[in-house]
């Protein structure tokens, strides 16, 4: 496979990461899976380019990134709305764009949502660590997978022989989420749910929560009326994506892609990967609530989602 430079990083942006589907099979060593914060937008970016679902792309938090294009190719822009310009001309979100050597791709700040995705035909070909290109800064697995994008960095891609068609593909309108809409997370209760009193359960399901400043790829802390007298810390056990932890301070934490692999806080249950995607696009201060979800419905939705995106 021929590798060719794709982009020079002129401005790295506030916090830009490389993500593929994630790092699986290593959680027993304490290595977190990582992977896209918004799986939905990530998968669309690859899909409309005809990429495999696991191809590495840029995950851009808060925007303000500038890239110089080093090859003639096609890119896709999905996720949060940043106001992206290609050579000073607005480039629409949720669709593909042809770019050529010397073009400048420029991101503004986030208007709606929190993280955006920039994919390229063939996927980024940065060095892998533990079978993944995903950046998880705190795991320090290798230099390239533990650092956000930096000025002067050169990003490689698979060389494309056939010229790219001028035809553009866009995500159908009704699949594009509204990241400003109020968000209700579907809770799938786990075996520790009965450890909560019915009053505590009702509080969790009726509280209006706001996203705290402690909200990142590891997890989102929510602030609402304190749930008092929660069960004490339990023996540490493996933690699944979307776990809703209830530490002693009575404020829930939803654990996301870069979560710790084990932990002992009591858990109400989990939210689905699709709800995690939505949550990751919400910002500090946004309102969040919970409702009980039927696990069968979540499973059917996720099975259909996985079939559609082929992963």
């Amino acid at each position, binding site marked *: 496979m021929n590798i060719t430079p794709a982009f020079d990083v002129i401005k790295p942006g506030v916090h830009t990461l490389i993500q593929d589907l994630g790092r699986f099979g290593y959680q*027993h*060593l304490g*290595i977190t899976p990582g992977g896209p914060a918004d799986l939905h937008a990530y998968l669309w970016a690859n899909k409309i380019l005809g990429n495999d679902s696991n191809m590495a792309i840029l995950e851009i938090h808060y925007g303000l990134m500038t890239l110089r294009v080093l090859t003639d190719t096609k890119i896709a822009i999905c996720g949060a709305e940043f106001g992206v310009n290609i050579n000073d001309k607005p480039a629409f979100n949720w669709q593909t764009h042809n770019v050529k050597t010397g073009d400048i791709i420029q991101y503004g700040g986030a208007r709606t949502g929190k993280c955006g995705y920039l994919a390229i035909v063939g996927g980024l070909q940065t060095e892998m660590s533990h079978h993944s290109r995903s950046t998880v800064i705190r795991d320090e697995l290798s230099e390239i997978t533990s650092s956000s994008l930096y000025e002067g960095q050169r990003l490689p891609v698979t060389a494309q022989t056939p010229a790219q068609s001028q035809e553009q593909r866009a995500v159908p309108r009704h699949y594009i989420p509204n990241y400003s809409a109020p968000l209700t997370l579907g809770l799938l209760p786990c*075996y520790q749910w009965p450890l909560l009193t019915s009053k505590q359960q009702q509080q969790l399901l009726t509280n209006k929560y706001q996203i705290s400043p402690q909200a990142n790829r590891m997890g989102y802390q929510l602030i609402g009326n304190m749930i008092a007298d929660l069960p004490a810390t339990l023996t540490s056990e493996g933690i699944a994506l979307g776990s809703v932890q209830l530490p002693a301070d009575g404020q829930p934490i939803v654990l996301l892609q870069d979560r710790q692999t084990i932990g002992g806080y009591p858990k109400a249950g989990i939210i689905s990967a699709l709800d995690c995607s939505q949550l990751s696009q919400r910002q500090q201060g946004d309102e969040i609530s919970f409702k009980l979800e039927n696990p069968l419905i*979540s499973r059917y939705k996720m099975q259909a989602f996985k079939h559609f995106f082929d992963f």
Partner: protein
Amino acid sequence: MQYQLDMIGYDAILIHFTDADNTQLLPVIYTLNQQLKSAPDLSTVIIDIIPSYQTLLVSFNILNMEQHQLADKLHAYVKRLLNTASPKSNHASPSTVNLITIPVCYHESLAPDLESLSQYSALSINDIIQIHSSTIYSCYAIGFMPNFAYLGDVDKRIQIPRHAKPKGQVAAGSLGIADNQTAIYPKSSPGGWQIIGQSPAALNTLSVGCQVKFSAISLDEFNRYDQKADA
């Protein structure tokens, strides 16, 4: 031995042992983990297994198996294991599999909390080092950060609670005690454990079920230690 299977969302199952102590459970969890990892009928199903003190969290690909089918299979594996090996027998014990010796320097310049442990325990520093380095520990869980291995049990005489507030940065390789557990920080990190020494070795060989012994080295040996030698 009692256990239950708990459905975690739609794509994970927690195998949960409920009535045995952690020492009895370790060989069971170790062996079950090995068997599930190498199970031919589950090789395209299981994505990750996270073993811990009393549990194994099995996450799986929902396109390749239904949750209830996987639960049936896990029941079969657990029952077969519990029927063939009593938890106390050596049959399933990992002790013969893997004893890893880790060099540690307990010199005061690398052990900011050794003096206060000496006061807390009313033991001399030499006694503490002797006790800590003569115990064989088992690895019960790995987490918090990559390769951070929870080792136990620490001799009752030198147990001490963690700091009430986490300290700033703990140096990479630092050896800590928190109650009945001891662990090495594989990399520099904020941490609350009581630091009683430091290891110069790379720590990527530990896994749940392995056994660990610490060997005391001098400050001179620590400074001359070649990381590449243990690769």
